């Protein structure tokens, strides 16, 4: 009962962390810490660190703690203790080994889901403190390689996949051809001015998951939306720089999105089902650029589908009969209260809904968010272990389909499904809508 508690982890090699640490100097570490903790952070850091009473109310709010059989080093406040408090108590004189530990905790043991904030009696924003640690690591250059590569891609191409502008245009062309095999005269307008809606795609929708972009095009065509996609870079709504806390790149990407929308003179931006992009576009990015609110409405897939169904722009032909459950992505539910809209849509699409407990804004994170899935294969077991409570939640519902309106939740839960043998199908709202919606006879090819 009174044994010493220490930080024990399996060894994991990530060249973005290990190799970078070989090349940097003590000076680099000191400079980064000083810049972040002295210049960039101020009131929140000071007050949060001083007020925490070490009461442990946050401990069992965290899925990582619950997934590791009560290892106290996984508790939210413990992660702050082992990073920020440690840096402050060492007055910034930290070793490379320390940085390695901080990077591991900040990038692979916290999803920035902010559930612990709801459990703290003071409302201390633990996720903010962890993102400060990520910011320090990012300035040093110590970031999991898979995240860093995507950030570099964003810096140069504004998308996550090193896609060139002509490849994007080419992709849209052949996707339009595919669309026309199902929808008569189906169109994907490119760079159309004065349209109602500018649709931005997920990077993967242009490469590995093109089915999603075609499905979105089907909905746009059937609902007769006046829409367009960008004809330039900036078509990809993802912002992986958020995960590294590379604020400058966040600013660059988000600025490009809004500038593209303003150049095309559209009424609003619509994105698909993605959590982090929405959050960055309306919080981090906007705030970094010095705006209080987005300059034009930025609509998430869930909000968009809600409007389409509510206004009868798409009609549902038949409802899904199998039991479904709903995953509430942190970035749109805890961060934007879309739980009710999401449930409205699912009720319209499905007959048998079994809710997870807890649900809505108290739901557990899928354990893949906040960059953990983007940290790539070296860290897969970290998120599988952290996702234990999510897997149990899903198993308890007995549902056959999990609706996850977020790319990260989607992939994360698919991996949990494989590992914990849950026997479910993970689906986007988009997949289900296209499956059950009415396509008028005259529109069919």
């Amino acid at each position, binding site marked *: *009962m009174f044994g010493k*508690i220490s930080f024990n982890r399996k060894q994991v090699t990530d060249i973005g962390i290990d190799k970078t640490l070989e090349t940097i100097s003590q000076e680099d570490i000191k400079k980064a810490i000083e810049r972040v903790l002295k210049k960039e*952070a*101020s*009131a*929140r850091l*000071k*007050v*949060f660190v*001083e*007020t*925490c*009473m*070490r*009461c*442990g*109310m*946050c*401990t*069992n*709010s965290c899925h990582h*703690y619950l997934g590791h059989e*009560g290892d*106290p*080093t996984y*508790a939210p*406040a*413990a992660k702050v*203790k082992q990073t920020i408090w440690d840096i402050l108590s060492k007055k910034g004189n930290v070793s490379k080994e320390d940085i390695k530990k901080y990077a591991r905790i900040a990038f692979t043991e916290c999803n920035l889901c902010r559930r612990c*904030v*709801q*459990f*703290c*009696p*003071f*409302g*201390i*924003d633990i996720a903010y403190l962890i993102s400060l640690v990520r910011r320090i690591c990012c300035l040093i250059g110590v970031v999991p390689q898979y995240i860093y590569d995507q950030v570099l891609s964003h810096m140069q191409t504004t998308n996550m996949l090193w896609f060139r502008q002509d490849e994007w245009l080419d992709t849209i062309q052949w996707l339009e051809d595919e669309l026309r095999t199902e929808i008569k005269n189906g169109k994907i307008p490119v760079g159309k001015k004065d349209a109602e809606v500018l649709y931005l795609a997920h990077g993967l929708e242009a490469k590995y998951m093109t089915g999603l972009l075609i499905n979105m095009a089907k909905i746009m065509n059937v609902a007769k939306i006046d829409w367009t996609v960008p004809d330039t870079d900036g078509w990809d709504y993802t912002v992986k720089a958020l995960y590294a806390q590379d604020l400058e790149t966040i600013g660059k990407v988000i600025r490009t999105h809004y500038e593209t929308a303003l150049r095309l003179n559209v009424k609003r931006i619509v994105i698909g089902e993605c959590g982090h992009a929405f959050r960055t576009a309306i*919080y981090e990015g906007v*705030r970094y650029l*010095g705006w*209080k609110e987005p300059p034009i409405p930025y609509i998430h897939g869930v909000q968009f589908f809600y409007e389409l169904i509510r206004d009868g722009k798409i009609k549902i032909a038949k409802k899904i009969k199998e039991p479904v459950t709903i995953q509430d992505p942190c970035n749109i*539910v*805890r*961060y*934007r*209260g879309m*739980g009710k809209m999401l449930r409205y849509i699912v009720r319209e699409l499905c007959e048998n809904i079994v809710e997870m407990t*807890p649900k809505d*804004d*108290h739901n557990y994170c899928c354990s893949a968010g906040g960059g953990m899935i983007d940290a790539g294969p070296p860290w897969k077991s970290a998120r599988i272990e952290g996702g234990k409570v999510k897997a149990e939640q899903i198993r308890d519902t007995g549902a056959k389909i999990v609706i996850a309106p977020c790319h990260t939740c989607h992939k994360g839960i698919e991996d949990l499904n494989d590992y914990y043998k849950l026997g479910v199908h993970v689906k986007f709202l988009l997949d289900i809508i296209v499956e059950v919606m009415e396509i008028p006879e005259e529109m069919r090819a």
Partner: protein
Amino acid sequence: MEQFLKDPSIYTLARGPLVWIAFLVFFVGIFYRIWEVVKLAKKERIIYPYLSLKYTLRSITHWLIPYASISMRRHPWFTIITFVFHICLIFTPIFLLAHIELWYESWKIRWWSLPQSIADVMTLTVILCAILLLIRRVIQPDVRFLSTKGDYFALIITVLPFITGFLAHYELLLDYKIMLLIHFISGEIMLILIPFTRLSHMFLFWLIRAHTGSEFGAVRRSRDY
């Protein structure tokens, strides 16, 4: 104060001038700390534009009512202990007859006081709760991992005036005057330390809840409780 001038000794010093110094440091310290935080928060551009009175009040209400938050419902025992602890901790010294007598002696003001028996129960409750909190800190692994010397020190400093006050009143353990002297000094140390240690959560609580409550309610449209 007059007693000290007539008969300067450690006892009269702790009973008179030191009390006023402690109160002065306590109030000035709190104002200084709040002013400091409010000024620093201006530098962080993202605090003030989003503050909302409605959601600040929503947040504070949910955290001042027992079991009004999911977190408190998940920790039923800890919640009841901390609530009782804080209520007794704040109200006992304010409404204790012996303290009011001292205010009357200096400023000729008095207010309603607790019957002695209830005051005794409340004092013992504070001590009991503190012991429970201390035990929890030692045996619960996640809390023990977080705890530092300062956390134990803060708990002891908070409860010491209650222990010594009770012992002095019933003339137990030590000579009445010596125990009273320890009571004065421990109370003064507690007042002086509140603005500058983690006990500052007494006033920082309201500021953080304003920020987090507004951020969750007005911006993120979800619950922070």
